[in-house]
């Protein structure tokens, strides 16, 4: 049965993965990280990712107003060299968690990566 570290290791096997972290977006805490970080510091990256996630989750435009648990499913940011996938992790108990996967654009496939990251997020909770 996978724990946090096993799920992060799995995420790093996604084609093009450069780094992954599990963040608590209520506080900006990094619960776990693997691989590299765009800023060289997983904690700093988590804090910035938290700002992005919070902006979307608190927004009446982007968030589902009736879903207090996971108001957004995922957020995708693309640039010339990278993809960033932020996948919300839903739990029965109260939590505000998201997986942040940093992908190399030349090596990664966005659709596949999104699919796999969502599967990993579910596996982390459901076992």
């Amino acid at each position, binding site marked *: *049965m996978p724990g946090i570290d096993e*799920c992060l290791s799995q995420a790093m096997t996604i084609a093009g993965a450069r780094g992954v972290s599990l963040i608590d977006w*209520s506080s*900006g805490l990094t619960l776990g990280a693997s691989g590299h970080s765009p800023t060289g510091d997983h904690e700093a990256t988590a804090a910035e990712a938290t700002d992005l996630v919070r902006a979307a989750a*608190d927004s009446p435009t982007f*968030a589902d107003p009736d879903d*207090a648990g996971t108001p957004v499913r995922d957020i995708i940011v693309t640039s010339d060299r990278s993809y960033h996938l932020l996948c919300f992790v839903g*739990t029965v*108990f109260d939590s505000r968690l998201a997986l942040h996967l940093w992908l190399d654009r030349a090596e990664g496939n966005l659709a596949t990566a999104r699919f796999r990251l969502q599967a990993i997020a579910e596996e982390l*909770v459901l076992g």
Partner: protein
Amino acid sequence: MSGVRGARIEAPGATLGMPLVQHGAPLGELLGRPLGETVERLADRRATGALRCTSGSVYLEAGVVVHAESEFATGLDALLTRCGRIPPDAWRASLRAFGAEHRVGRMLVEQGHLTQGELELCHLGALHDAAFFTLGARSMVASFEPGVRHWLGPVSGVSARLLRREAVRRRDLLERIWPCPQVDTAPVAPGPAAGRRRVRTSLRQRELLHHADGRRTPADLARLLGRSAFSTTVEVRRLAAAGIVATPPSDALRPGAVASDALAPGALAPDVPCPDEPLLPTTLAGLQRRTPGAALRRPSDDLAGATVTACPPNAAAHPLSAHDPDIALLNRVRIALEARL
């Protein structure tokens, strides 16, 4: 729990019940230090046991923080039973059967009540929440009980430095939202903007407001709803910043309030004049009135023990010397509203 009588370290000259480790430095050097620093010192000595403070406990195993509990934070039991993830009866049965052997966590997973991922996620969340409220307490009174282990048993560990850094970061986050820590422990009551105009609130906030009966504090509401105490505190500070929840007058003596300087000494600007504030009792010596915006700096500054010498412009312009506390509060509201425009 197999309690060894703890060595009180609250007063100078306290007799030590037993040394932390055989070759460790005397416990007395931890006197009067912020609790986060005390946990770091204990970790440096690879201590095993429970550090008991006025607002909670931090458990260490071979120098690694393995759990924390606080009366102000929602515990694993409420987090997991209130949402229906584990039936209360099953939780109590696990606690009775395996608590004495310190393996409740492992058995919850082995008996299929939780997945390993859920246990780790919930445990880490509860640990950091409790550590935030424990380390942030104004009182530095603490005692260490060597050898004591938590009934949950090993799940995952956190370094003492990460624990403290995270607590400082959380405090700074709250300060940026609304620099009035007194709302964290006061009963949640309607503020000036409640019901007067249409203010947009989230579903989570509306649930909080629905259960706020004027007596329940944020910690009570978090426990009642089975929510993380820190995320509830974040919501309450936001509601207070919007005026939907009342901000009571500053009460530095309120127990459990996360002291602005408890986590990092020297974090406050030392030369801010506070003519309207009476001197605090000696037990709180060194505490000063919060300077709005004083926390708007990188947490790493705290870790280096740097003293803040310059405040952001908005803090400098803030009328701290206003003699009427209501005017000071209204000014804060105005500044917060302007910041949101």
